[in-house]
């Protein structure tokens, strides 16, 4: 669309396939008979298990305790008995402990009957403590502990608070549905954020194609007499990425290696704010989230409200199984999500989608050839990097050169791999290069 705003350099337009699920109201996924809770579902240090096998846990009870500020509690989403503590590989890779709970007993806390907390009278410090106690993290995918992010040092004036409703990953419509169905709760979440952060301005960034959400938000804002502005942006990928979002909205660039606060702004995702609302108003910990189950192989795709810890296999079953064999099953979206090799993987806090791709949806197959310097990756890179050269440096183990080229600016958005005609796994290579570099730095 003409005159729409977006970030200026790079980006791609993958088919969004959001029509598969955008019209489907959020429905409840069945309660799991067993739930698996990795203790590392967030950025920062892992939570420490606070239960032992055989312990009885209640719905919403803390089972993993954050040992420091940059971490998050993990709660049990079901009542039951702790079966075991096991080692596991979370979808994001790495290794961590996980608590396995067998369903037993009653769901004694429904959170609905409880009298809502009068959050407008609660001091910001207590609101923050509540968010921390409820284990809220960024639900857009990064899973950054929200209380840690929102804990500004005293005297820091926040100019801009951005509500991120861009949802630029293809297929995923969880935030779209929340904006439509939970508009009021979302605005409450924003109100709580404003009370904690006192920003001068609040912008709600929504894909300009998502006219329903824009209309719903604008109507609700007007009804409440709030000053928030809804800003439609072009649905270019990765517009939902925090720094590119701020670039599009303010024209300012977060300095290389810096944080959004350095340009006076904070960004939080729609799903996060909904969770904040539930945490503060109902005192409900983060034990469920909306997951978009989509992709053409699914018989009945949908937007599901899922208890954390549910096996993705249960979601597959709930959505009618596969009508055609999927070539790939992805936790998250197809641009940045993690391919799952098995159906035992649990739903975690950061998982916004469960996407199954047929081989047709993955794009025409081709074999890898040498780089022909076609420069498509340079043009697609929103960070102004030269992915082809970075990849070559990393392959040759020339980390110093790679760092000088700006390796650490890479956000692994996947644009370079998406466009590479030589089918070189650029994003994967750069990601590995970053890890190796981090490893070297620690030594």
């Amino acid at each position, binding site marked *: 669309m003409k005159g729409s705003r977006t970030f200026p350099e790079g980006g791609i337009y993958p088919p969004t396939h959001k029509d598969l699920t955008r019209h489907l109201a959020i429905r409840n996924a069945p309660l799991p008979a067993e739930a698996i809770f990795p203790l590392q579902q967030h950025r920062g240090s892992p939570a420490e298990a606070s239960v032992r096998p055989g312990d009885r846990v209640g719905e919403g009870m803390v089972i993993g305790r954050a040992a420091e500020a940059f971490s998050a509690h993990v709660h049990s989403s079901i009542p039951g008995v702790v079966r075991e503590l096991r080692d596991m590989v979370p979808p994001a890779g790495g290794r961590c402990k996980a608590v396995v709970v067998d369903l037993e007993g009653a769901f004694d806390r429904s959170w609905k009957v409880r009298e809502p907390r009068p959050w407008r009278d609660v001091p910001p410090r207590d609101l923050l403590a509540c968010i921390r106690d409820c284990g809220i993290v960024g639900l857009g995918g990064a899973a950054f502990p929200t209380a840690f992010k929102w804990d500004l040092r005293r005297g820091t004036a926040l100019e801009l608070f951005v509500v991120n409703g861009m949802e630029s990953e293809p297929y995923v419509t969880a935030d779209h549905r929340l904006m439509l169905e939970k508009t009021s709760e979302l605005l409450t979440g924003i109100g709580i954020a404003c009370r904690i952060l006192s920003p001068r301005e609040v912008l709600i960034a929504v894909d300009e194609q998502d006219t329903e959400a824009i209309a719903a938000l604008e109507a609700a804002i007007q009804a409440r007499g709030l000053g928030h502005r809804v800003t439609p942006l072009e649905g270019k990928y990765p517009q939902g990425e925090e720094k590119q979002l701020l670039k599009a909205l303010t024209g300012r660039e977060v300095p*290389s290696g810096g944080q959004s606060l350095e340009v006076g702004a904070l960004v939080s995702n729609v799903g996060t704010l909904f969770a904040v609302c539930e945490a503060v108003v109902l005192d409900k910990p983060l034990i469920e989230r909306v997951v978009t189950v989509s992709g053409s192989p699914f018989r009945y795709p949908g937007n599901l409200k899922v208890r954390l810890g549910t096996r993705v296999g249960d979601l597959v079953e709930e959505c009618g199984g596969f*009508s055609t064999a999927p070539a790939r099953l992805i936790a998250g979206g*197809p641009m940045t999500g993690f391919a799952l090799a098995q159906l035992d993987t649990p739903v975690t806090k950061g998982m916004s989608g469960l996407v199954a791709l047929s081989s047709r949806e993955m794009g*025409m197959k*081709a074999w890898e050839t040498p780089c022909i*310097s076609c420069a498509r990756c340079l043009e697609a890179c*929103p960070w*102004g990097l030269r992915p082809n050269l970075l990849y070559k440096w990393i392959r040759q183990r020339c980390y110093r050169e790679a760092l000088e080229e700006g390796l650490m600016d890479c956000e692994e958005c996947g644009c370079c*791999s998406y466009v590479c005609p030589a089918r070189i796994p650029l994003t994967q290579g750069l990601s590995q290069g970053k890890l190796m570099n981090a490893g070297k730095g620690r030594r």
Partner: protein
Amino acid sequence: MRGEPKNLQAAAAPHVHVGTCTAGIMGTAVLCLLPAGAWGVFVFGAGALKVVLVSIAASLLTELLLALLLHRFTLMDGSALVTGLLVGYTMPASVPLYIPAAASVFAIAVAKMSFGGLGRNWMNPALAGRAFVAFSWAEPMAVAAAPLALAKAGMEDFTVLAKGPMDFLIRKGYPTSAMDRALTGWLNEHLLAPLGTSLPGGYLDLLLGNVPGCIGEVSALLLLLGGAALLARKIVRWETPVSYLGVFGLLVWVFGGLGFQGLLFRGDVAFQLFSGGLILGAFYMAPEPVTSPLTRRGRLIYGAGCGLLTFLIRFYGSLAEGVYLAIIFMNMFVPLINRFTRPRRFGLAGGLKA
């Protein structure tokens, strides 16, 4: 459980792709080149077809042989096909067949594979092959068979060394085809006369390719159409051909007339643009991705350099290889251009703190 998937692949993100591939790019380039080659065969006869086929065969065979030697099967990426085709296009139709074969072997074995294969060559392989045979067998390479239509008019062979503008050739008795006379006459009468201008004879022959020259070079019009298709598919970026042709055209316009009437701003731009290998070079050789710069600014500089050098060689050099040498020369500067035309990095523009 229903529909338990068996072959789930664990692979790194992203899991979707826009769908392009190297072989597809090469294939598109071949398709866009074919009409101009077909025209070459049409005007120069079956000899032209033989030359092109020998070039391609030699190119593919060399690639296959080296692939067997290096245990790295690379024939399917399509680059050898493009190289072979381009080598054939830069040959005169009358050339003995060992010359295109030698050019292709040199292009693949020396210019490409000895540097590590596709993506590592610093010089356009087809141009390297052409340059190699142009200097090794100067005489047969400098003679271009006249189109059959012109041969009947008594022009058996015609050297491509002529650099003068159309007017000069016509006065020297250079024939134009009946089609050119008819079309030019019609255009002058119906379109240009009301505008108070007229088109001299010969230019339509030049644009359509009814002139002596190398097989794939002569049809400027069909090359331009193929070039437009490559531009539309973003296989060729506009920066290289536009700055190449722009800078060259500008220089010709300003200085090109000095040799004839001694006046500035009188150069015959149309003649210079559509003659020789310029269109083939500007759309199919210079923009070849491996040997051209990575950024928009880089490509503008590179194209401008090609234009300047082509002008200098054509007007002040002693060789007929203006376009090809200019491009090879600029290929050498690509690493340097890349070094000084990096993309602007995000978040390095200075402290924009709130």
